[in-house]
C-alpha cells in the first residue's frame, strides 16, 4: 500500500543533522558514511534501459519524486548497481529465483513488458499513477506467479535492496531522527523520553502513522 496523499512530508526533527556530529566518529566509520554523500558511483551493471526502469521503480518504492539535483536525494539506483556489479549479495537466494544480479535484470525487463502490455508505454515512460499500478499489482499477487517468478520473492528482492540503500544514507537518518554512528562517543542518556544533547525531539509526536491511516 502506498498512500498517495499529496504535499510535502512534515519535517519531524527540525535542525537535526547527523553530520554535525561527524567529528566525533572514528575515522574508519567516517570514511564509510561520508563516501555515501560524495558523488554517487557510476552505473556499471545496469544497461541504460535497465537503469531507467530501475530509477522509476526506486523513486516509487521510496517516494523520491523531487528534483534529481537535490543534494539530499539518495542515489538509490547507483547504490544498488554497485552492489550488483560487485556481487555483494545477502548470501542467499530463493531456490525459485535466479541469482540476484540476473533476477534484477529479469524483473526490470518484466516491469517494462507489463507496462507496455497494460498502457502501451514502457515502465519508465509511464505516468506515476501507471507505474504505481504496475508495482501494486506485483505486491498484491503474494505467492502467485508474476512473469514466471513468485511475486513475493520479486518484492523481497526489490524492497531489500532499495530499503538498505536508502536507510544507510545520512539524509534518511535525519528524516527519522537517528544519529547514525556512535563510536567512540556512545550514549549517556538511554531510556524512555531521554535524549542526548545532540538529539532533537520529534516535533510531531502525535503524528502516528498508524492512527492516521485508520
Amino acid at each position, binding site marked *: 500500500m502506498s498512500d498517495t496523499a499529496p504535499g510535502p512530508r512534515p519535517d519531524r526533527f527540525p535542525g537535526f543533522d547527523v553530520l554535525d556530529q561527524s567529528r566525533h566518529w*572514528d575515522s574508519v566509520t567516517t570514511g564509510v558514511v561520508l563516501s555515501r554523500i560524495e558523488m554517487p558511483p557510476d552505473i556499471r551493471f545496469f544497461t541504460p534501459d535497465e537503469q531507467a526502469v530501475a530509477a522509476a521503480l526506486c523513486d516509487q518504492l521510496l517516494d523520491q519524486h523531487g528534483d534529481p539535483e537535490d543534494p539530499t536525494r539518495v542515489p538509490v539506483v547507483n547504490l544498488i548497481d554497485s552492489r550488483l556489479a560487485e556481487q555483494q549479495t545477502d548470501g542467499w*537466494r530463493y*531456490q525459485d529465483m535466479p541469482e540476484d544480479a540476473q533476477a534484477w535484470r529479469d524483473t526490470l525487463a518484466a516491469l517494462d513488458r507489463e507496462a507496455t502490455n497494460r498502457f502501451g508505454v514502457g515502465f519508465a515512460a509511464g505516468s506515476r499513477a501507471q507505474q504505481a499500478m504496475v508495482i501494486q499489482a506485483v505486491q498484491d499477487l503474494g505467492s502467485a506467479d508474476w512473469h514466471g517468478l513468485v511475486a513475493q520473492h520479486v518484492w523481497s528482492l526489490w524492497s531489500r535492496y532499495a*530499503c*538498505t540503500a536508502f*536507510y*544507510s544514507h545520512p539524509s534518511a537518518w535525519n528524516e527519522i531522527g537517528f544519529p547514525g554512528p556512535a563510536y567512540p562517543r556512545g550514549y549517556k542518556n538511554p531510556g524512555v523520553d531521554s535524549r542526548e544533547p545532540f538529539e532533537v525531539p520529534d516535533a510531531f509526536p*502525535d503524528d502516528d502513522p498508524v492512527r492516521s491511516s485508520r
Partner: protein
Amino acid sequence: MTNVRARNESAWLLPTDGTRTNHRLREDMRRFADTEEVDLVVVGCGAGGSVMTQRLARSGWRVVVLDAGPFWDPDSDWVSDEAGSHHLYWTEPRVIAGANPVPLGSNNSGRGVGGSMVHYAGYTPRFHPSDFETFTRDGVGADWPLDYTDLKGYYRAIEEELPVAGEKWPWGDPHSYPHRPHPVGGNGEIFLRGALAMGITAKVGPVAITNGRFGNRPHCIYRGFCLQGCKVNAKASPLITHIPDALAHGAEVRADAMVTRVEVDQRTGRATGVHYVRGGVAHFQRAAMVAIAGYSIETPRLLLNSASARFPDGLCNDFDQVGRYLMVQGAPQTAGRFDAEVRMYKSPPPEVSSEEFYETDPSKPYQRGFSIQTVSPLPNTWAEHVAAQGHWGRSLREYMSDYVHWSCLGALCEFLPQPDNRVTLAEEKDRHGLPVARFSYTQCDNDAALMRAAQAAMEDLLHAAGADEVITIDRFAHLVGGARMAADEQHGVVDSDCRTFAVPNLLITDGSVLPTQGSANPALTIMAVAARAAERLASRRSHPD
C-alpha cells in the same frame, strides 16, 4: 568467582592503550608447516572451534585453526554502521528452499576469527534441564546422550570467561551471573513495564557484555551496534575471549583459509588432515586429529563435499544422517508504538528476557515453548520490519520517520528437529568449484502454533505497556543441528563427546551437534559442549603422540 585469569588469560592479553588488538601477540604467533603433522587441526574459528582450540592449546597440544574469513582488527575492520558491516556475514552463495525457506546471510551466519559471535546480539542464556530430554518428557524432539548436569560446570566456566552480566536467573536450573545486570534503555524499560502490568516475570540479561572492566576490556558504552561487531571490546566473541589465550599457548590461527575437503585414509579409515585454499593456492595440512566447527550449514556441506570411495554419500554419512535435523528458532518480531520516545537504538539490543513461556504448558495445544527478549533493530532492519507490513512509497517513509516511537521485542520459538529440514548440495558451485549448500525448511504444525502464540504474548505485553498499535514480522534465527549428537550411528553423526561414529579421529565441535535447541540462544551451549568435548579428549590422551 573462581580465578578466571588462571584458566583463560585472554582479557588480560588485550591492549590497555585504547586500541583493541594485541598485534604483537599475532606477529609472534607460532606457525606450523603444512607438512608437519599437528596434533589437531580445527576447521572454523567461531564459537565451538575457538573454545576447542584454546582448551587443547592449554593442554599442550599443537593446534592449528583454519578460518575462511579474516583475522579481524576491530579498530580498522569494523564500523559503527549497519550497511558498512556487510563483510561480517557469510555471503558466499547458498540456496534456500522448502515450504518455509529461511533467509541466511546477515541474519544467520558469520565468518572470520570469532565466527558468528562477532555479530551475534550477545544473549547467553543456558538451556533448561528439560531441553536434554524433550522426547521422554513431552514426546517430541529428541533426547540428548548427555544431560544438563553433564554441562553445568562448563556453563559456569564459560559464563565466567565471557563474562555474562544479568540478574539472578529464576528459570531452568536457577543460577546467578558473574557480572551485575546492566542499566536498561528505552526498549528494556518498556519490556519491564509491560511484564509488570501483566504479572509476567522478566529479568535483565543474560548478556555477554562486560559491566565494569574485565581484564583489559572496557565496559559497554551503550552505543547499540552489537550486531555490527563491538568496536569497544565490551561484547564477548572468541576473537577476544579465547583466541588471545590460545595464541599465548602456542596455537596458530590461519585466517583466510577455506577448507575444501577432509581427507580420510581409505585403508585405515582415519582422517589425515584437511585440504584448504589460501590466496588461490591449494594446500594440505597434515593432522593427527581433525575437528570441524564451520557452523550448521558449512559443517554438513564440508562433510558432503568430502565424499570418497569409502564414504560415497559424504563423510560420516553411512546412515543418511548428515545435514538432517537442522533447526532454526522461529523468531517473530513484534513492535509497539508509543507516544513517548523510546529510541531503542540507544543501549545494546540484548537487554531484558523472559523465560516464563519456555516449558511445555499442558493447557496449551502445542508442546514446548518460547522465550521473549528485547531486539532493538537499527534503521535498515527496521525498514524490513515496516516494509513487511506492505508499506512502500510515501507510507513507508512516513512509518519510518516514526522510528523513535517504537519498541521492539523478539521471541525465540523452539522449532522441533525434523529429518527433512536439511542441508544438501545444490547444482550451483562456488568460486572454488564446490557445490553450494541448499538449505530446505518446512515448519510442522507445532512450530507454526508456537509462532502465533509467541506473537500474541508479545502483543499483549506491548499493549500492557501502553502501546497503541503493534506490528509483527516473522523472522528466523540461530541455526543448530545438521550433524547431531546421538546414542548411536543410526540416529546421529557424533557421540556425546562430539566424536564422529564413522571416523575415530574426527570430531565435530560446533552448533551442528545440538539435537534440540530449547528457546535459548545457542552460543553459550555451543561453547559449553565444545569445552566438555575438549576436556574429555585431553584427558583421554594426556599427551598426544
